[in-house]
């Protein structure tokens, strides 16, 4: 069977784009293979680790268990969109300053999940940060540094 492709149009990191995409393509494969945005990582392969988290209309979503066509017409943001005008986002600065990233593999997912949290709750307490990041596994840090990184971003003055 040759898979029929249909046009998928969406807004990716602020830019509208349209691609011919087969129905069975995962969102993570669309991002990494078709769009060339390899910042989004594949971890567990089944929605259990959060490394593949991206934002869809400001909400975190696991791109390895989403079909690309499920987010048709929506606003998608990946870690590549976090930087603006060559400056790191406050969360990226937080992970840098507070050493929230060690091997780094989970970091894009952690930052996107935290970004989603801060957009619905700009001033979370530590329990709310833990809850917002509860779907993201890190095997290096023990999470203390990640919580501190998000806290740094929360307390940072707006750019």
């Amino acid at each position, binding site marked *: 069977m040759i898979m029929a492709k249909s046009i998928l149009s969406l807004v990716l990191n602020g830019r509208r784009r349209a691609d011919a995409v087969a*129905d069975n393509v995962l969102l993570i494969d669309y991002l990494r293979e078709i769009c060339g945005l390899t910042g989004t990582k594949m971890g567990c392969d089944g929605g259990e680790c959060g490394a593949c988290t991206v934002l869809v209309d400001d909400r975190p979503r*696991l791109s390895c268990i989403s079909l690309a066509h499920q987010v048709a017409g929506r606003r998608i943001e990946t870690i590549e969109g976090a930087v603006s005008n060559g400056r790191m986002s406050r969360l990226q600065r937080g992970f840098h300053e507070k050493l929230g990233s060690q091997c780094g593999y989970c970091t894009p997912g952690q930052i996107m999940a935290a970004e989603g949290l801060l957009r619905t709750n700009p001033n979370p307490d530590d329990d709310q940060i833990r809850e917002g990041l509860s779907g993201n596994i890190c095997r290096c840090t023990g999470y203390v540094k990640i919580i501190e990184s998000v806290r740094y971003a929360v307390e940072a003055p707006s750019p």
Partner: protein
Amino acid sequence: MEFMPEFRTARPTTVAEAVAIRAAEPGSRFLAGGTDLIPNIRRGIVAPPTVIDLAGIAEMRAIESLDGGLRIGAAVTLAELANHERVRTAYVGLKQAAGGIAASTHRQVGTVGGNLCLDTRCVFYNQSEWWRRANDYCLKSKGDVCYVAPKGSHCFAAFSGDLAPAFMVLGAEVEIASKSGVRIVPLTEIYQDDGIDYLLLKPDEMIAAVRVPAPSDGFRTGYAKSHVRSAIDFPLAGVAVGLRREDEAITDLRVALTGTNSMPLAVEGTEGLTGGPPNEAMLQGLDALIAKQIQPMNSTFSPPGYRRRVVAKLTRSLILNLYRDG
């Protein structure tokens, strides 16, 4: 590219259209949030030729008032349910169940209907294609033997959805849509204790909504579960309790369980335990009822004996807490 079998996606915009496609295309599957179905497709456990994406059906995404209770569309997300004002205040057990499923990211896409229809789970089933092939597959998918009970011809995969027991103690009903219209049945009647055919829905039927009756005076609900990790994980066992206290007596008691059988289990016979306070004799009576009706098997990494003990413990503490607060 990651491995994905080939399939076509249909995108209906009404419930009627969705069930018509389901009836016309054997083996097709409904897709809502995808947190259960897509990992199973990726593992080669299911290979539907057509996936019916329900995201475009607006009528399935609303929570409405109905006769003093609620009508909850099957495509309402778990996060929307847990954060709904009426649910948080009037249906506490339901809020606790919905708010504790997986992790916050999953709850923002996972749906009510998806959790009610959650595929049963087993250590011999929820594995990669390569793992299962190396073990000659299992009874639930492509194989001949159930490794949990090799002498029998029955599948013992466990039902692990959190919402079903919480809805059951509320006396919820489901609206089941098909080509011939909508039928409304108690939620307890759509399940049977079979790991393969755990849902009593016909091939062209779909849960369109759940109806929860108006909260009755003094009836309180709670939900508690045991799990290895406090996020992302499925429950080893979950307990929903609903009770009414009048003076010192419990006058209504309902208990429903998940994780213990191949279906969510509404415990039978609890009415015989009402009329007095939750003293040791009453709680032992309840322990005996539960012990007789549950059948945890070696389908998870935790042994059945542990799950038996944890169910009894969770049920007791929920009842005592609800009694004290009531």
